[in-house]
């Protein structure tokens, strides 16, 4: 059907809005001058500085540790939870509890955990951030897997039992493969959210070496240098590469599935 050309105005405006600031960041990362605002010629020096900045490099490492750790927790527990909620209970309350961290403002979870960790006199560190990220990440995994489950057909499991498979064989050979795309999507979401999470990490990291968002936050608070632009450009490049690689992989996966 024909659609109005007028719709294209907000459509393109959205993309310009999303990408113009990012483009500015990238251009300014090649700034030869010291200022974050005025371009004074081309230089790669900020990339050099970035590579030499231990805090940022350690931040990257810590962020990855936290993201991997919380994704593992969230994926395992979230998947189990989703299956349990979908198959073994009809409780609306449990449903709500499992979804709560996803719609709770970060800040509320952050102070809750701060208070709680303080109460039990825990020494904070990367692991307390991992535990904290596990909370909301699990909610997202559970939500995604549940969507998948609610679309799934319980009769598949019945068919498997009917064909002579026991409960364990059925779970492993039918249920899990069915859920796999949901689990992968959920894990990816959990990982992405953890990578970018700042508030909760900020409140629960204590004196440990900070994650990248915290490093960036304190860098920005102490003034802006084009080094941050260089970091942004590199993060962007990594994301683009990851997306393209991901696309390729799913394409290959799909074409395999066609055979």
């Amino acid at each position, binding site marked *: 059907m024909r659609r109005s050309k007028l719709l294209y105005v907000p459509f393109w405006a959205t993309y310009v809005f999303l990408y113009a600031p990012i483009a500015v960041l990238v251009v300014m990362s090649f700034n030869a001058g010291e200022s974050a605002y005025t371009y004074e010629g081309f230089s790669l020096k900020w990339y050099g500085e970035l590579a030499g900045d231990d805090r940022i490099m350690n931040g990257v490492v810590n962020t990855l540790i936290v993201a991997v750790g919380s994704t593992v927790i969230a994926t395992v527990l979230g998947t189990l939870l989703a299956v349990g909620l979908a198959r073994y209970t009809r409780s609306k309350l449990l449903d709500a509890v499992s979804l709560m961290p996803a719609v709770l403002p970060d800040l509320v979870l952050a102070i809750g955990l701060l208070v709680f960790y303080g109460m039990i006199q825990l020494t904070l560190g990367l692991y307390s951030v991992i535990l904290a990220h596990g909370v909301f990440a699990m909610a997202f995994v559970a939500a995604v897997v549940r969507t998948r489950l609610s679309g799934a*057909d319980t*009769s*598949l499991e*019945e*068919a*498997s*039992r*009917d*064909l*002579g*498979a*026991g409960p364990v*064989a059925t779970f492993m*050979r*039918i249920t899990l*493969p*069915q859920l*796999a795309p949901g689990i992968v999507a959920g894990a990816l979401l959990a990982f992405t959210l953890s990578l970018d999470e700042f508030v909760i990490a900020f409140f629960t990291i204590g004196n440990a070496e900070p994650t990248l968002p915290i490093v960036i936050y304190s860098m920005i608070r102490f003034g802006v240098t084009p080094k941050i632009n260089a970091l942004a450009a590199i993060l962007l490049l990594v994301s683009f590469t990851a997306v393209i690689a991901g696309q390729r992989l799913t394409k290959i996966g799909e074409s395999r*599935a*066609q*055979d």
Partner: protein
Amino acid sequence: MLKIDGVSRTFGDVTALDGVSLEIGQGEFFALLGPSGCGKTTLLRIIAGFETPDAGTVTLDGDDLLSLQPNRRPISLMFQSYALFPHMTVAKNVAYGLERERLPRQEVRQRVGEVLETVGLSAHASRKPAQLSGGQRQRVALARSIVKRPRLLLLDEPLSALDKKVRADMQLELKRLQHEVGITFVVVTHDQEEAMSLADRIAVFDNGQVRQVDEPIALYERPRSPFVADFVGANNLFPGVAGGSGGIESETFGELAGTPLTELEPGTEALLAVRPEKIELADENAARGLAGSVLDVSFYGGVSHVSVDVPGRAKPVLAAVQGAATLSVGAKVKVRWDAGDAVVMAAGQ
């Protein structure tokens, strides 16, 4: 062999099964026939072990079935919704049940190959279910349940998605299996023609209850209740009271000729049923018959259906005639039948 005794099941305030008892013999081809929502699938699910009855017992050769886990029952169920494993190829789907029995791979491959040949899907063995048409999927489901050669095979609407030609092939195939392998079949369908052409015996369900269990021809020709008479095949029903001569006494039409199925006390409320193909359309000047005028003529290929509006009846009388009917709409006719072709039964059952 399979004995179902007093099985009931309710969901909330829906009574899906209400005291169902059936006995199905070894090697029999048994059909469950009934309108949508009458409890057919529920009964199969109870036999297969996916539903627990509120009351009643189910035994197979005298052994209690209900206490067995589904995967321990020597029964295959073909699901109404197919329930194919979407992540496995056609061949893998079919092999799944055999692999669970830990058969040698060589044998699995061979039996899968054979059954795919049978259902005409050898060429599609390595496709995924999503790449098949509806009819092809149904055939995979069929193959998957028959390949295990269970003692009891439960089929829930196994052929509904197939077009006329393929359907006929599959019907022949099922009959062959029954004869060669000696499997007992319980087939659910809402298609009366299919039930009648396939089954040794048919149970007609309504509202969670068994209304009649009989061989196809008996069911068609000697329905024991108005429900069965009306549901199985088309029928023309006339209400009245049982008359002395075997027919009925109708308020509007006077005496109508017929043959009572069971002894009926003269004067009891009764119903007379005549099949469309037993109706003769006579000239309007014929001596005998109910006068009416042709309302509609529909050509159905081999037969034509003629609806005749008979004053005094709300629904037109339906007659089936061979070939293309030569009558035109509005023609005056008389509708009549032989006493032996009309069945009389007690009303209100």
